């Protein structure tokens, strides 16, 4: 049982950044703009917010500092994603191109600036953000051990974002309009909706969430930031597609992937798995192979937003 709790806690570390970032990607693609720049946005979000952590180390309490960092990460993500929005929405540019450009730009920029500011490219921070246990909630059997011990405030923020994202997407005026733009922008336009505005909103949301995802990715896994998020932005794209552009399936996909990852790293502590005497490389492959296998059985009917990736042209019938 203890082991299961541990596995779940570890799963969360992989899953939450993927979840948050993939939900961001969902907003963008649901508005009709493909965003493969998630990786770059994560790097930028992590960069500024960790720089902030580095500067303010010791000046304020851990979680307050983290909350401000979260805001900074999101704002950075928004600003950076605006470049994508300008290209995709205003200039009707090829969205893969501008996404690729941003992915290339971010790490180079982070290194360049870090060097100018502090001489070295790594940015240190002290991780003072762990929540040992959440009062009361941690006493709930099973769930308490799994979710409310040894956690990060960002975990709860991740779940909160999931809930809000689901409601926003399906229950609000904004969500309805956003989805309309991703499926049939001509229809949305004819209904008096400004497709441009909605697509901006979608991209900005993806920027905010991917920026946050970058911070959430780095904080629990290291004590410094080195201008990379190890390809998790691309994995988030994979989770988004795997999750069929729907919040609930994105949750499942992120969980599946996170759990496989956690398992592949902790198998040595699980006696019966370790005794199988399988190379760790095999375990490292498992999450990726499993994802492909699952997709083979679930992809027959893809529900990609129809207009995603196609620049909106009001003149087109």
């Amino acid at each position, binding site marked *: 049982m203890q082991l299961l709790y541990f596995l779940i806690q570890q799963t969360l570390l992989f899953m939450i950044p993927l979840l948050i970032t993939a939900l961001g990607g969902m907003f963008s693609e649901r508005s009709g703009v493909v965003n493969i720049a998630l990786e770059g946005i994560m790097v930028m979000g992590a960069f500024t917010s960790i720089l902030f952590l580095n500067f303010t180390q010791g000046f304020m309490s851990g979680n307050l500092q983290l909350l401000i960092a979260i805001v900074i990460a999101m704002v950075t993500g928004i600003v950076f994603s605006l470049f994508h929005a300008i290209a995709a929405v205003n200039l009707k540019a090829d969205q893969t191109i501008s996404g690729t450009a941003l992915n290339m730009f971010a790490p180079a920029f982070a290194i360049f600036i870090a060097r100018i500011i502090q001489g070295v490219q790594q940015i240190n921070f002290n991780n003072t953000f762990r929540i040992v246990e959440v009062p009361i909630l941690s006493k709930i059997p099973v769930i308490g051990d799994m979710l409310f011990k040894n956690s990060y405030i960002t975990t709860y923020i991740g779940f909160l974002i999931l809930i809000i994202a689901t409601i926003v997407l399906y229950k609000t005026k904004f969500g309805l309009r956003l989805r309309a733009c991703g499926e049939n922008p001509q229809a949305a336009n004819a209904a*008096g909706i400004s497709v441009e505005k909605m697509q901006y909103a979608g991209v900005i949301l993806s920027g905010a969430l991917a920026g946050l995802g970058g911070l959430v990715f780095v904080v629990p896994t290291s004590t410094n930031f080195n201008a990379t998020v190890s390809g998790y932005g691309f994995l988030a794209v994979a989770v988004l597609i795997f999750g069929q552009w729907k919040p609930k399936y994105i949750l499942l996909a992120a969980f599946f992937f996170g759990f496989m990852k956690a398992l592949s790293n902790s198998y040595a502590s699980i006696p019966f798995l370790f005794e199988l005497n399988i190379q760790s490389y095999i375990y490292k492959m498992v999450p990726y192979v499993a994802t492909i296998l699952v997709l083979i059985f679930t992809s027959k009917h893809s529900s990609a937003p129809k207009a995603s990736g196609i620049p909106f042209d009001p003149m087109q019938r």
Partner: protein
Amino acid sequence: MEEYAIEMRNITLSFKRKIANDDVTLKLRKGEVHALLGENGAGKSTLMSVLFGLYKADSGDIYVNGKKEIIDGPVTANKLGIGMVHQHFKLVHNFTILENIILGIEETKGGIIQLADARKRVVELCKKYSFDLDPDAKIEDITVGMQQRTEILKMLFRNNNIMIFDEPTAVLTPQEIEEFMIMVKNLKAEGKSILFISHKLDEIKQVADRCTILRRGKRIDTVDVDKVSKEELSEMMVGRKVSLKVDKSEAKPKNVILEVKNLVVAGERGHKDKVRNVSFDVRSGEIVCIAGIDGNGQSELIKGITGIKPIKSGTISLDGEDFTSKSIRYKNTHGFSHIPEDRHRDGLILDYNMANNMVFQQYFEKEFSNSGFLKTKDIIEYTQKKIDDYDIRSLNGPYSMTRDMSGGNQQKIIVAREMSKPHKLMIAVQPTRGLDVGAIEYIHKEIVKLRDHGIGVLLVSFELEEVMNLADRILVMFEGEIVGEFKDVKNLDLNELGLYMAGGKRMNMKEVA
């Protein structure tokens, strides 16, 4: 001075090198049905899009109820009471009818969309106009006719007083057209002002009060519909006399070309079969028409025969050869020609130039390729010839991007291509969809010519007029089955045919066979 609901004064608009509207003036009286008539590409849709705020005119003014307005988008248009049903519907396919209707004017409480009131109003409107619609049905699951009614509901829901219909009847079945005409009259009776685009002169005669004719972007005239004949209208439209009736001789059917036996085509997963045990044949030198309301399995039947969709069971043979499990390519090169139902989706690569599309079915033949290499020069020459033969109009001849051509001319590429390649059977689905009378006349003539050359023609059309004009024999399809066959087309009672199409009557097909 009379106050008009709409006055569009001296509108000029050009796309790149193309002047779509050239100094057009259009005046819509209050409470009238005003038809807009013109060839393909005459500029009708463009003019209406200007009125609805989708396009911005280069020059010219718009007055609504006597007041000069700048309509910069659908929102403004809506505020001014203008609504539009577009030629290509503007509906979100995976939204419900209700969601499509409220889109853009949602009511919310605490940020959450409130549907209850809207649903009530929609149900009321449906009752009032006797629309049989389920507000919670998804657009992708309903028929085209229902989708159009959804579009109309959108306008009614927004209390639009000025309604624009862009080719509303092109996609409707005869019964639906009938209902539509009644509805237009009702709306008029309620005091709504209506702009109505159509290529069909009958319809214009039936509902319109006045008619403005456009040709090549220019306004030719505005006439009182009562005072002119159909012939005069069509002459104004194309600038020459056109015969509206296809004159063709008696068919002389010979041997059986196409034989379809017990064909079954499955539906979407979980749904029932789309084509159920269908058997029929087509002889050389005859035109067999499959009539029926859209969505009764005609598309699937053709897809099954041509091989685009896998069949569940049954056999297909051409000229005695078993075609059942032959590849599409084999069928195309051994006797089939096929004008598909949707030129953009099925028939053309819009990003290829005209020449490449012209050899789409033949690029691999010796004539156009040499051990895997394309003979570009020959392809261009061939295309140039077809351009001349079929009068295909474009800016750069064989090098024109297909996407940049008008729908009618795009259709001509397909017609030229399919008719020119060697074949024994012509399968034509909706070959004149959305085309103007001139083009229709031309294509109809070509089809009859094919027949007279001994080709078997299988024609699917939802337009009764076309069916009656062309068919030597009519098969009626209903819910995936052939429910009737009519050999004596000349003396056919239209009402009788309608009954079969609507499933009210059926023959025992075994007897017929």
